[in-house]
């Protein structure tokens, strides 16, 4: 009996080892994880140099980990189990009040070096283009704007560091702090997605009005902001599981968000090129038809390239603007572009240090530059994507 028991146990163990290993190595490799919105590690090339310097060993481990069979199921059930056992924090995400998924991001004085770096970089930018043409706007991040929805044991201290960032910028840079207006209105209306770290179109619209009004103080030739009634609002998708739901594999079981598409009047005439490729539609409709966990926020053009250009032919008398921004600027550009002739969007996630801002400004007759990023960017990341 004991012998049979041992045989059965050892057989199951050995089978798990062999089947898992063989299945992983022999099955077709996945190129990309939709839910994580990233490319997965592929089988590394074996050569003597890689073997000797240890790179092959590291890459092979990453490959096995990324391509491990049924990887998504393992993760899903692990998070389910953790949530079921009462773990409140799954991959840095917690469920807050009103079904909001929120981040447990905490900033410390170690982030000050990033802030200093970013301030220095913006001061350099100011010297290139002149302070009268540069606007710097910082959007509060989703959790920052919804601190009242966080569980009692978590505090978000992004405000402290956003204040520090603004205080370090020299006085002549035109700063647009969006917090007051967003915090006030966010109490009345949801300005952010519940499952994603971005603002929704209502938040975007508020920021657009605020920033455009600010720009008009020095550039009165720019037309006044549109009213909400000037847009045709259509439902892009009612099944948007945002970054926070995807990262936690939606184990908190919150309902999906809605992606709204705000079509401005006369949008049909607008020409949009993403990375030099012309788009036929005002939004990326293809992505909206994607699978459940597709990142549908990318319906707002710009994530696919470092440079996206909106051209509104009837605005040929109006100035051109360059927006240097993170993902918060994607939805924003779809609104503000109607007030300029050319709107160039430099998307920081895809940009690299070879991008020459002076050349872009000169080549495209740019009249003003708007830097628009969320607070996490200036605190936690670095403007290293242009010179």
């Amino acid at each position: 009996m004991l012998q049979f028991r041992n045989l059965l146990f050892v057989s199951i163990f050995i089978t798990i080892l062999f089947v898992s290993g063989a299945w992983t190595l022999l099955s077709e490799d996945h190129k990309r994880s939709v839910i994580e919105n990233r490319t997965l590690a592929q089988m590394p090339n074996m050569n003597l140099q890689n073997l000797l310097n240890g790179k092959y060993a590291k890459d092979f481990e990453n490959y096995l980990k990324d391509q491990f069979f049924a990887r998504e199921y393992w993760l899903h059930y692990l998070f389910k189990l953790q949530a079921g056992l009462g773990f409140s924090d799954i991959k840095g995400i917690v469920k807050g009040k009103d079904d909001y998924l929120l981040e447990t991001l905490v900033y410390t004085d170690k982030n000050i070096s990033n802030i200093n770096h970013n301030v220095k970089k913006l001061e350099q930018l100011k010297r290139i283009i002149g302070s009268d043409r540069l606007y710097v706007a910082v959007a509060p991040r989703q959790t920052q704007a919804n601190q009242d929805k966080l569980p009692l044991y978590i505090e978000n201290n992004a405000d402290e560091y956003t204040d520090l960032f603004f205080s370090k910028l020299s006085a002549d840079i035109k700063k647009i702090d969006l917090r007051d207006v967003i915090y006030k209105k966010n109490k009345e209306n949801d300005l952010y997605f519940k499952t994603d770290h971005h603002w929704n179109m209502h938040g975007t619209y508020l920021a657009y009005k605020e920033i455009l009004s600010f720009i008009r103080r020095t550039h009165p030739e720019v037309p006044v902001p549109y009213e909400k009634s000037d847009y045709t609002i259509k439902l892009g998708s009612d099944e948007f599981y945002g970054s926070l739901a995807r990262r936690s594999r939606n184990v908190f079981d919150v309902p999906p968000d809605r992606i709204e598409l705000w079509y401005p009047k006369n949008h049909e005439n607008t020409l949009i090129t993403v990375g030099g490729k012309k788009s036929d539609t005002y939004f990326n409709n293809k992505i909206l038809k994607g699978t459940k966990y597709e990142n549908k926020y990318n319906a707002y053009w710009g994530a696919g390239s470092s440079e996206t250009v909106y051209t509104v032919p009837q605005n040929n008398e109006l100035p051109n603007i360059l927006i240097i921004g993170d993902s918060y600027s994607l939805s924003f550009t779809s609104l503000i572009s109607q007030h300029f002739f050319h709107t160039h969007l430099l998307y920081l996630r895809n940009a690299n240090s070879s991008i020459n801002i002076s050349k872009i400004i000169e080549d495209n007759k740019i009249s003003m530059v708007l830097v628009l990023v969320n607070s996490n960017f200036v605190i936690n990341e670095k403007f290293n994507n242009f010179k």
Partner: protein
Amino acid sequence: MVFSSFTFLYWFLPLVLLGYYLARPAFQNYVLLAASLVFYSWGEPKFVLVLLASIAGNYGLTLWIDALQRSDRNRQAKLVLTTAVLFNVVILGYFKYMNFFVDSINNFFGTEILIKKIALPLGISFYTFHALSYLFDVYRKKVEVQRNPVLLALYFVIFPQMIAGPIVRYHLIAHQLRERHVTLGMFAEGVKRFIIGLAKKVIIANNLGLVADEISRLPAADSTVALTWLGAICYTLQIYFDFSGYSDMAIGLARMFGFQFPENFNYPYISKSISEFWRRWHMTLGLWFRDYIYIPLGGNRVSRWKVIRNLSVVWALTGLWHGAEWTFVLWGVYFGVIIILEKFVLNQILTKLWAPIQHFYALFLIVIGWVIFRHESVSDVWNDLCFMFGAGQVPWFDTRTLYYWMKAWPYLLVGVIGSVPVVPYASKLIENVKFSFKGHIVDACYIVLFVLVTMFLVDATFNPFIYFRF
């Protein structure tokens, strides 16, 4: 290679098992040696040369010692032994202590001697101690000299224990290198032990380590008294589950190939004194020092002052063995002083106290010990201790502290339960319960645990082994 990696679990281990059990018995040691060399070289191949040099040097020198002893030339044999010890000490000294030595000279004497940064070969402290063990055992004629270089190389590099122990003294394993038998029962036992170790490492140590690491990276201004204590407690549990988990995996794997390795841990955190703690923690290191340093120096059977001297030597060396930093020396001295005090003064008082107070005394000193151990500079140790005892001008508690406690509590709970002999106690209880399929249910629990470990590994972003750097 790391045990808790996909490369090891789902690629290396199945292939080695296949190769080993398909090979004829006469070739099994060759398979194991080749596998061990691949295991060692994977990711850091250049240091395999240092390892091979150490094996070759020790092989030749012990044959020489044996030949001299056989022809009764004992003085020359002693001289060769000294040379062989120096050979090992010089290798270890160069790779592990050279930078430390030069930096210390520069600091103390204000000199500016410049040498390049010397990288530490993986497992050098462990295989050097294996080499010394072999030398002494041969010199003392406790064992026959090993004439087969493959078997000697296998003792040095056998993959379950070569990187982080247990330190297997040569005489314990000499006959197993030549001949061993694996039964299905032994293999199953080995698998279970391996799974336990893997779970300790991947589920408890990694997750507590993540919290301990995050807390230690916070700037001083963002710390609190309670948070520093949480960091220290998490690290205390992390290092135990990390290291004892590695030892369990090593013992389990060795059993799968027919070896019986000595135990390395025996619930150290239930100790009532520091002397007891060190009889339960990294037992094979303690026994190595006892056999090859403490007893040759005279051990306990000498005058009180000589015992103090002997203990001081052993503890200074224990500290230094762990790493080339002044904090490790301080850590060794710290435990040395406590053990000397316990031996001559405290034990008489402690044994009369209520048992929970004895446990508290030991645990408190152990946690403080780990605070010294984990930092690279004495000033960091001092800062942490100041914070922990309310002298660091930081608040006692804040929301962030609560957040980290909330994050750590499930693993702390499992860690605390796992640190006391609950499992053996529960096993005994289960043994007395009689119902059909009991054994299968227990086995199924091990399989579920293994699957759970895989789930954690798929998600793991933090997977270091603390003892790898020694």
